[in-house]
């Protein structure tokens, strides 16, 4: 009851302000230099309701300092109308919202791309292409600069239905090695697969932690899926995106990495290493505490994990493990001599926000979305409020000491004030660099100097028929692939003996049909 009334009241206010907004529209083009007034979208305050679902806080707080600053600058005021506030699951929240039918003006949060692209063509969300072209010069500028993102964002009908969160910065995960162990054994950093093998054997046999026991675990991983990434050392692939087991693009053709020769060779060797005890025997069940436990117990040698958080152990473990030096290293060269880092930060998140069919002020809303892509809006969404959380030093935003020295990590502080949350905005990597440790920064520089990155598969939007084919075959194919994968690594199956049967099974389960729809969708989406 109360909710309905509020909405009706909200709409009333909105309708009144539409007229004045229309008059204002001509004068509000983004012109840097003027005071805050140039960001104003509406003369009279306008309220828009918003569903905003993300893992750390299911909802959009009206007293975020960032929201209040944005309200002051633009005149637009977001009111929280989040469905499913008590579930941490984004699918569930989105489905609750859609099932209740009565959509708020703005729908946003994490992982909205798929539902928005699926229900947009059914009429639930407004297509944004024309609105952006006419009213959102700053978003348009980003899309013009990165046309591949526009392709990747689009739904199968060619329309854009959401304004995304665009991450900045390139590297995500990296290889790390215990430099102090290498030094203790008089070894060089491994540069090829063969080197790596020798180092692992030495870690296993020569007691680098010096406790007199052979308890070292040469390769350890927090996510067992990272182990599959080792197939890149044999020119295989484990995924094409930042989602595990995903498709990848090879010379303009969508393929699945788990049905290629490089993968076969890679898994064969990983199985051999596993059998020889070079890989954590408990890699499949150790779980996310593996890194914390194995590093602090001085047991783990090499891993593949995120730059910033992994490098952070150099500080936190200095006392517990004397001489601890966990250094980022370049990925070893593969057997054919190529050196790649398969993981990278995705340039496009499936997060952001969209305009629902129920929104009566689409023009004001798209202008509001555009605000976050202006210089001021981007700073606000990355660094918080000027004077409070950051200062401008030579025109560059710098976090205040209070923020940098607080007990909480900077990113969690930002989430609490409403910055860095998955609205449609453009991340500024400078924000993260300011609180990245030196060890990680050195590693990132090392990776930047070498050309390690490969193109990512940013996903396709399937139309109804293609989706039906995908839904029908894909889950059982993936289940089968993963079952065989683990069996081979654990040694309960032999990949060389099973391979032909495996490929025949994939075919029987419809892999070629799935690849066909993936490729037709890919051509439609990226060729035009």
């Amino acid at each position, binding site marked *: 009851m109360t909710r309905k009334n509020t909405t009706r009241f909200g709409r009333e206010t909105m309708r009144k302000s539409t007229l004045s907004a229309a008059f204002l529209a001509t004068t509000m083009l983004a012109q840097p230099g003027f005071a805050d007034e140039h960001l104003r979208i509406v003369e009279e305050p306008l309220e828009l309701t918003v569903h905003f679902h993300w893992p750390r806080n299911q909802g959009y707080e009206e007293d975020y300092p960032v929201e209040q600053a944005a309200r002051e600058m633009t005149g637009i005021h977001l009111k929280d109308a989040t469905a499913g506030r008590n579930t941490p699951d984004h*699918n569930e929240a989105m*489905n609750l919202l*859609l*099932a209740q*039918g009565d959509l708020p003006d703005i729908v946003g949060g994490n992982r909205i791309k798929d539902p928005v692209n699926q*229900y947009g063509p*059914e*009429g*639930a969300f407004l297509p944004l292409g024309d609105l952006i072209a006419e009213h959102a010069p700053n978003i348009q500028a980003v899309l013009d600069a990165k046309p591949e993102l526009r392709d990747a964002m689009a739904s199968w009908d060619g329309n854009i239905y959401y304004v995304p969160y665009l991450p900045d910065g390139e590297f995500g995960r990296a290889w790390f090695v215990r430099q102090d162990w290498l030094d203790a054994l008089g070894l060089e950093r491994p540069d090829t697969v063969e080197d790596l093998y020798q180092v692992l054997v030495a870690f296993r046999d020569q007691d680098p932690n010096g406790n007199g026991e052979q308890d070292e675990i040469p390769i350890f991983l927090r996510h067992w899926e990272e182990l599959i990434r080792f197939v890149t050392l044999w020119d295989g692939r484990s995924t094409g995106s930042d989602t595990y087991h995903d498709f990848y693009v090879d010379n303009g053709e969508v393929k699945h990495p788990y049905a290629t020769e490089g993968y076969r060779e890679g898994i064969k060797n990983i199985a051999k290493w596993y059998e020889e005890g070079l890989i954590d*025997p*408990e890699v*499949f*069940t150790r*779980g996310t505490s593996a890194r914390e436990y194995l590093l602090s117990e001085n047991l783990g040698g090499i891993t593949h994990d995120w730059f910033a958080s992994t490098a952070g152990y150099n500080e936190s473990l200095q006392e517990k493990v004397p001489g601890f030096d966990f250094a980022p290293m370049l990925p070893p060269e593969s057997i054919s001599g190529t050196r790649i880092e398969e993981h990278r930060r995705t340039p496009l998140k499936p997060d952001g926000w969209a305009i629902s069919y129920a929104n009566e002020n689409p023009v004001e809303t798209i202008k509001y979305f555009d605000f976050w892509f202006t210089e001021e809006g981007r700073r606000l969404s990355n660094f918080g409020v000027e004077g409070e959380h950051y200062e401008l030093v030579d025109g560059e935003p710098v976090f205040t000491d209070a923020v940098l020295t607080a007990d909480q990590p900077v990113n969690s502080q930002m989430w609490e004030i409403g910055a860095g949350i998955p609205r449609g905005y453009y991340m500024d990597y400078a924000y993260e660099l300011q609180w990245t440790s030196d060890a990680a920064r050195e590693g990132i520089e090392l990776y930047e100097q070498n050309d390690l990155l490969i193109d990512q598969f940013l996903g396709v939007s399937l139309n109804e028929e293609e989706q039906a084919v995908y*839904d*029908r075959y*894909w*889950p*059982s194919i993936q*289940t*089968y692939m*993963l*079952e065989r*994968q*683990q*069996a081979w690594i*654990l040694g*309960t199956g032999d990949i060389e003996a099973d391979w032909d049967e495996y490929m025949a099974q994939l075919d029987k389960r419809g892999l070629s049909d799935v690849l066909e729809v993936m490729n037709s969708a890919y051509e439609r989406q990226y060729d035009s």
Partner: protein
Amino acid sequence: MSQQEHIGPSTEELVVEAREALRDRTRRRAARLGDHFKREWQIYVLLLPTILWFALFLYKPMYGLQIAFKDYSIFRGIDGSPWIGFEHFRTLFENDQFLRAIRNTVIISFFTLLFGFPAPIILALMFNEILNQTYKRAAQTIVYLPHFISTVIIAGIVITAFSPSAGIVNTVLEWLGMDPVYFLTKPEWFRPIFIGSGIWQEAGFQSIVYLAAIAGVNPSLYESAVVDGASRWQMVWKVTLPSILPTIIIMLIIRIGNLLEVGFELIILLYQPATYETADVINTFIYRQGLQQGQYDLAAAAGLFNAVVAFVLVMTANTISKRVSRTSLW
């Protein structure tokens, strides 16, 4: 016809009499029913919330079951989605992984029942034989405890206990001179571990029902058994067990009704692709296909199938029990 006419008069009289008697009885019964409601209305008011709860949370959602026969889109809604008949069921039964999930569900359920059902009864009988009250209470509390631990923690305990490097199970194996086993990736070990941990978690708590039943056994039965020179073993076998048999049978029928509701949260936390072969049950299959992939219609079809099988099972169990032991749910 003619014969009936021949003895007509008396029959007619009888019929009229019977009709009047019937009318009378109905009238009286209606009056009695009215009186009954007038007298006992408080009881019906007390019953109302339960009826409402059933109607709202168990009968109303049945309306949504129709999506098992529809091409469901959450935005179009249940009514707006087109009918597609048995398409989802066809998809399911063409999928060897679904058939495997049915097989695993049946096997796991069967063995859970076989080993898990007698466990709390045996436990209750054993508690009953403990004479030291302090020891008895302590022991009971300890076996109840796992019931109150969240499934996530139970899974953590199981994973740690069976870990090849630090787990107690492998430590014992090594003492005995055997090689450590990575149990949780071995398909042949999944079912014993899953069923065993289920029994460890629930047997204690389930034994409460039987303890209560045992407490209700008439002490004079034991006294006369003692007079007759029965041993303790004979008393358990000839007095306690037959006395609590109705409780056992009712519990058994309830268990059979829930037979296919394998505790899939624990399975999701414990299984690996490597153990899908023996661990993947209908509910985990639904979880992967339906919820993770958003195919609610297909998942609803699988769930409906599960419910139909469970219904048949409980009907059968009840009928057999009615014939054999004269104890039944209805």
